[in-house]
């Protein structure tokens, strides 16, 4: 007792008072700032994880990797045994799409795009015949066109949420200008089972003025490489920065970056800013146009339900899935006396049943895949998923390993991406705090 008082006297309170503006040592390698007007851009190969790109912009694929492989089965079924029911997942609904849908009044967080036999059949019957399509000014669809669905869904040019189908279900229509000078339309219906099912698909030749028809309000279409290169080939350049194909774009994907500083040069500088987390995977890709201030303001987009439920109290369950213990140590450090995360009501708890969300660290090995999924299922609703560290977000330094099974991350919605290798406690605390308070 007496000793404790003495210790207390010796050891003054050391917690960081203002966690949002906590000072950071200048040596810390945080948020990168890029400027390719300096000519010393290093070679891409210096990057151990492929986060650094100088050329076309990387596309984040949330698409089911087996889509193309299994597509033929569905098409065969649609042609031969149309009464059979089979579904094929295309991929997860991106957070950006979900946020946009939210503005139009419906919630599709955590939904999955999928294709079923009846959708394919409908597309063929309605839009596959030459004699019906050509009078309408449309081009009959072929088997290959189904392969382009993910491309349309994830990098559409225009989107329309206002439709309803015959039975009153909400429909979403995606429109995209393709490289062969056609315009693709994909129509999805929102079903009750957390899925957006492809209803139909049709295309026609682009006859209008491409400059006015491309309404570039989708953040993805300004980053998707396919669009940029396509536009520059076929249309007059819409976005000034992709003038000609020679102009290369310098980018760093913070979801892969280990912040090792190997690529540090005049063109690439690492600031000591630590607020690098985002709610959207696409935003983690930093280009020359991204400034730290803008990023900090827009990167974390919270949701009303989350703020309502968790703003004062959030309990998390951490699942270490084949990481290196670095992120685990930093997560433990979040609860120490310096960072004192507990004072905001954010804690790590022992049981998934007590938790409101899981924090995944590590690239998810085959051996941990089932345990991770079990743990997620044990968490009562509403719940969130946070990916902490480069390994969890993209596989990081382990991305080429054959021992991984990242299916879980493809299946379930991710709420928050926290970059770093390992994550810094301040990055984690600030990210979670601004996600649950919306500030």
């Amino acid at each position, binding site marked *: 007792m007496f000793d404790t008082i003495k210790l207390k006297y010796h050891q003054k309170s050391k917690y960081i008072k203002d966690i949002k503006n906590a000072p950071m040592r200048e040596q810390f390698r945080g948020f990168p700032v890029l400027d390719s007007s300096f000519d010393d851009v290093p070679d891409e190969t210096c990057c*151990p994880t492929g986060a650094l790109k100088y050329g076309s912009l990387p596309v984040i694929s949330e698409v089911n990797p087996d889509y193309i492989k299994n597509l033929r089965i569905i098409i065969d079924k649609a042609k031969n045994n149309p009464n059979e029911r089979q579904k094929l997942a295309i991929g997860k609904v991106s957070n950006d799409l979900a946020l946009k849908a939210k503005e139009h009044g419906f919630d599709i967080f955590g939904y999955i795009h999928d294709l079923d036999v009846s959708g394919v059949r409908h597309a063929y019957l309605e839009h596959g015949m030459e004699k019906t399509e050509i009078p309408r000014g449309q081009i009959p669809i072929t088997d290959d066109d189904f392969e382009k669905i993910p491309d349309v869904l994830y990098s559409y040019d225009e989107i329309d949420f206002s439709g309803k189908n015959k039975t009153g279900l909400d429909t979403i229509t995606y429109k995209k200008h393709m490289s062969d000078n056609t315009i693709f339309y994909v129509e999805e219906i929102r079903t009750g089972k957390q899925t957006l099912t492809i209803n139909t698909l049709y295309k026609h030749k682009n006859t209008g003025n491409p400059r006015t028809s491309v309404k570039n309000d989708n953040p993805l279409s300004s980053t998707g490489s396919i669009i940029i290169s396509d536009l520059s080939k076929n249309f007059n350049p819409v976005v000034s920065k992709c003038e000609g194909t020679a102009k290369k774009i310098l980018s760093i994907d913070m979801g892969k970056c280990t912040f090792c500083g190997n690529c540090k040069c005049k063109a690439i500088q690492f600031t000591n800013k630590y607020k690098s987390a985002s709610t959207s995977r696409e935003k983690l890709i930093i280009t020359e146009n991204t400034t730290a201030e803008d990023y900090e303001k827009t990167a974390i987009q919270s949701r009303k339900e989350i703020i309502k439920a968790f703003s004062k109290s959030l309990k998390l369950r951490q*699942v270490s899935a084949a990481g290196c213990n670095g992120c685990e140590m930093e997560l433990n450090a979040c609860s120490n006396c310096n960072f004192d995360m507990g004072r905001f009501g954010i804690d790590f708890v022992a049981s998934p049943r007590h938790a409101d969300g899981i924090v995944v660290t590590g690239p998810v090995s085959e051996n941990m895949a089932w345990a991770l999924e079990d743990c997620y299922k044990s968490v009562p609703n509403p719940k969130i998923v946070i990916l902490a560290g480069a390994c969890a977000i993209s596989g990081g330094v382990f991305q080429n390993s*054959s021992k*991984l099974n990242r299916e879980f991350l493809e299946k379930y919605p991710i709420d928050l991406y926290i970059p770093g290798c*390992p994550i810094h406690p301040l990055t984690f605390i600030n990210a979670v705090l601004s996600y649950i308070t919306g500030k």
Partner: protein
Amino acid sequence: MNWIIIENNEKINLSQIPEITIERLREDYKELKHRVIGFFGKNENENIRLYVILADDNEGKLYISSVLFRDNEKSYDSLTKDFPAFHNFEREFYEEFGIEPLNHPWLKPLRQNQDKYSFFEMKGEDVHEVAVGPIHAGVIEPGHFRFMCQGEKVYELEIMLGYQHRGVEELLTKSKANNRLAESVCGDTVIGHNTAYSQVIETLCGTSITDKAQIIRRIALELERIAIHIGDMGAIAGDMAYLPGASIFGVTRTLVINTMLEISGSRFGRGLIDIGGVNFDIKEEISDKIIKMLTEVEKTVDKMTKVMLKKPSCLSRMERTGTVTKEQAQAIGAVGMAARSSGVMIDSRIDFKDKFYKLENLRFSALGDVYSRFYLRYLEIKQSVEAVKDLLKILKEHNNEDLKVEIGDLTPNSFAISITEGWRGEIVHCAITDENGKISRYKIKDPSFNNWYMLSLAVRNNGISDFPLCNKSFNLSYCGNDL
């Protein structure tokens, strides 16, 4: 000549490695009384060659030999039944190459196919089974523990790991230089593993780096030791629910890792070491800062440790809890800090020649219980603080040297080995190149690989509620074992 004798960080041609039989190996092992530190296979056309590395701690030499298994030989007589230290090595070899060690007392999976394995079971009226994991209640790595208990007393603990298996060794063969991957072998021993990796590649390239880089690497290694040891002491206090210990050690650790951040831009020293040297210099002002910080840290650690060791409630939790005797530790081939706490004095910084360290084995009464491991950590912190101060002094003499040198190409058909004493114990990295000068086999042995079985022994006949305390006192690595 059954063995080729080399030193730490030495390269040899593959053709120089002798070939012996398993029986010869058994007899030599018995006769030489050296420690096994490497026992791994490599595909050689249709055959499999098993490399064996023994360490002579007294002389600081390494003994290397190999055994060839032709493609029709699918088994051999196990070494583990005679020498328990081989138990995990043989399991690993069996798992990777399918060559069965006959009469192995306990041939269970090491990293794969855990779900197909039926666990060790005890029968009896009062025996009950407690299974924990792979996901634990705290923020720690995954592993599965199965206890056979009678009431609160543990008869037997079986540890099943492999959940962190992510194919590090395979990935390391794919690229020539991947220091970032080496750092992620085990995130709490970033410097240790990265040093070993860099050294083994430098050895294979025939590059010798500057003394300055060598000294900075060692300073970082000791700072890592100090930081983790303080953190562990805090964690031990936390497991006993002794709040002042947990909070004060926690805060003190932050001082050390933040100094690491000032040196290298990362709290754990990531990005500091690269093949060919180091990326960051320790300048005069940082050097002064380090000394100031270490003095303060030492003072706080002294004070806190004294208070804790006076507290009856703390002492009663630590003393005679989780005891591993010297004989047990020796038999199972324990290494590093955990082995030293049981009185097995092996420390590769001292045993193998190193021109920068001036260390001596610590003298203390090693009883092998939680208390010994706690107290040894305290002593090692003090020892490392002195070592860092010494190294900083020598660093001044090498001020004008380069941080990094150019590295050449990997020598074809070679074998190299590097041993580094991380905070947990010796880290062994071996690499073999093929005729094109590409790495064809990379082998890592983390100290945890030897020491996990110590934990099983430690909790025998202890209360099950003392298990977390024992576990923390070892603080073994799951990812270092699973790779």
